[in-house]
């Protein structure tokens, strides 16, 4: 990660608001995207992530705020004057042009000389492993190959920032996983700042240096994959990223970092991961894999197994607490794993460091 902590800021989104006639798509969004960073905008559909990307590309204007590229405001520039390039969700390849002409398009517009156009087009086609396909039309390529052409076309002009709008969503699962690795490598090799939009959290967690989780036009949290997964700042982030159990608790004592929580009115837990906690009602976010099953007699928290879901690598066990709350536990499918039956009464052991206190 230290590689990316060159403090140079590639894109500075400064208090941007985008209003349409009826909806506000972006509400006071502020983000700093570092140079040479793989930055992901993650969120459910309609959260504003694509709108934000499009305001950076220049396809959408903004109502308030400023967007700076390496310090210079770009909000008054039309898209064709912004030194950023986009990989579109449905690729938007020019259907009447060969792969080569598609890739060369941006360079030709920049009046790059012919010999240089040929050289650079060849280079990027090699980078995306499509050298043999230069003369094909987009319609003669598979979805995965079209995706690579779209990437090559956007990389050819050597933009300072590459914007990627859910570029993998049209690919099937296996291909998507391969392309992820390739994209990461290309980003690392070229040193171009990538701004990647996705609704797929796995994509975001595996590829990004940092992630901005968005919802309802608001940036909920910005951080590394680990920050976001392990220390979500609010319930939305905890719930959206991965699976989590959100347990209602009452905080009876706290110093702002550690908190004593009361569950079900009588079980007391001391949580270490309680930044910003105050006394009163709150939620405890516990990942299913950070819980384990034990004997009911040895555990302060117990419940009845209501459902087992077999998932191959592990098994999800749903445990009903006394008050009816359902807690998901993920048990690794190993030889010595003790898998209960439905109806069994089990104890729940909780890794206290992994339980995160979130204020409501």
């Amino acid at each position: 990660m230290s590689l990316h902590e060159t403090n140079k800021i590639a894109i500075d989104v400064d208090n941007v608001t985008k209003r349409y006639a009826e909806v506000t798509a972006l509400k006071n969004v502020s983000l700093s995207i570092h140079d040479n960073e793989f930055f992901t905008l993650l969120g459910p559909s309609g959260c504003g992530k694509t709108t934000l990307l499009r305001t950076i590309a220049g396809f959408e204007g903004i109502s308030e705020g400023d967007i700076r590229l390496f310090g210079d405001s770009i909000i008054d520039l039309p898209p064709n004057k912004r030194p950023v390039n986009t990989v579109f969700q449905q690729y938007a390849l020019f259907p009447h042009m060969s792969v080569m002409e598609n890739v060369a398009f941006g360079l030709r517009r920049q009046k790059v000389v012919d010999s240089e156009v040929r050289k650079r087009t060849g280079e990027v086609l090699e980078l995306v492993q499509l050298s043999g396909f230069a003369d094909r039309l987009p319609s003669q390529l598979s979805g995965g190959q079209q995706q690579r052409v779209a990437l090559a076309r956007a990389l050819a002009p050597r933009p300072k920032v590459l914007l990627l709008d859910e570029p993998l969503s049209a690919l099937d699962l296996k291909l998507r996983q391969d392309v992820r690795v390739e994209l990461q490598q290309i980003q690392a090799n070229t040193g171009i700042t990538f701004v990647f939009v996705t609704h797929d959290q796995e994509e975001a967690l595996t590829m990004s240096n940092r992630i901005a989780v968005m919802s309802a036009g608001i940036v909920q949290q910005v951080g590394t994959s680990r920050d976001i997964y392990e220390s979500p700042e609010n319930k939305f982030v905890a719930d959206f990223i991965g699976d989590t159990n959100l347990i209602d608790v009452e905080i009876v004592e706290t110093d702002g970092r550690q908190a004593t929580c009361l569950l079900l009115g009588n079980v007391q837990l001391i949580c270490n991961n309680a930044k910003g906690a105050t006394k009163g009602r709150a939620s405890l976010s516990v990942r299913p894999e950070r819980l384990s099953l034990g004997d009911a007699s040895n555990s302060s928290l117990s419940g009845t197994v209501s459902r087992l879901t077999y998932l191959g690598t592990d098994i999800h066990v749903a445990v009903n607490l006394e008050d009816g709350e359902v807690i998901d536990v993920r048990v690794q499918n190993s030889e010595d794993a003790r898998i209960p039956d439905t109806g069994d009464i089990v104890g729940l052991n909780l890794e206290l460091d992994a339980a995160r206190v979130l204020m409501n």
Partner: protein
Amino acid sequence: MAMQDINQGKNTTTHTYQGLGPSLLMPTWLMIGIFLVLPVLMMLVYSFLTKEFRGGVIWEFSLNAYDQFIFDRGLFGDDPPKMEWTYIGIFWRSILQAGIATLLCLLIGFPTAWFIATRVGNSKSIWLFLITIPYWVNLLIRTISMKFLIRENGPANEFMMSIGLIDAPLQMINTNFAVQLGLFYSYLPFMVLPIYASVERYNFSLSEAAADLYSSQWVTLRKIIIPTVKPGIIAGCILVFVPSLGAFLAPDLLGGAKSFMIGSLIEDQFGGQAGNWPFGAAVSMILLSMVLIVLTFYARLQSRRAS
């Protein structure tokens, strides 16, 4: 397709309408056969016959009709042949008129089609509906109205004089301009509709991609939009050019003797003064061949695109 798949190997065609396939086209084949193929063949035959003095034909093979189109052999037909430019001139003028009409329709029709295709929701169908409104009135009536509008003391001249644009009435009627106006007005929707259909299918993210790759709007139009909607443009041009070339109403009613076009020339041989059926048939055949050449050229272009 799905139906075919299900039925394969089961011999259940009698339960579907598949067996009817070819016979479904029978009425159409009959119509085309009786009212298109047969008359064209008749014209072809007539063009090689000898003319009767006042219309009609004598059943005797003759190349006179085609000869007359190209050569001038004097009043009694026994002078040494000279090149006859009159009819070639009429053809040339017709091509020019039809070409200009096509170009005008394209210049006005393209932005119109673009505008309609880019409307959202219901208003699209309202605009399309408005385009078809002129067709509620017969072309003859519309052409005659046009004649009244642009005549010497008609509303067009009066209006331009009242706002001080001109001092004296403009001679518009019986000019090439009037013919042009008539052709343009008659065939504009034939340009708008196919281009509309093409633009409707246009993927607007291509324009965004072009802008993203440093294209100005003008370059995007030239390099991306026009090549992508070209099939619609070509279809529109054919639909305007071909009928304009053989148009009869506009040149006859709006143009004078100087604006004579192929359509009027042919009409003149059958219904009018000249009364030379073989020559009329020959001119029709020449016009038809020209149209076929244009269409073949277009088909070639299309198949090259497909391969």
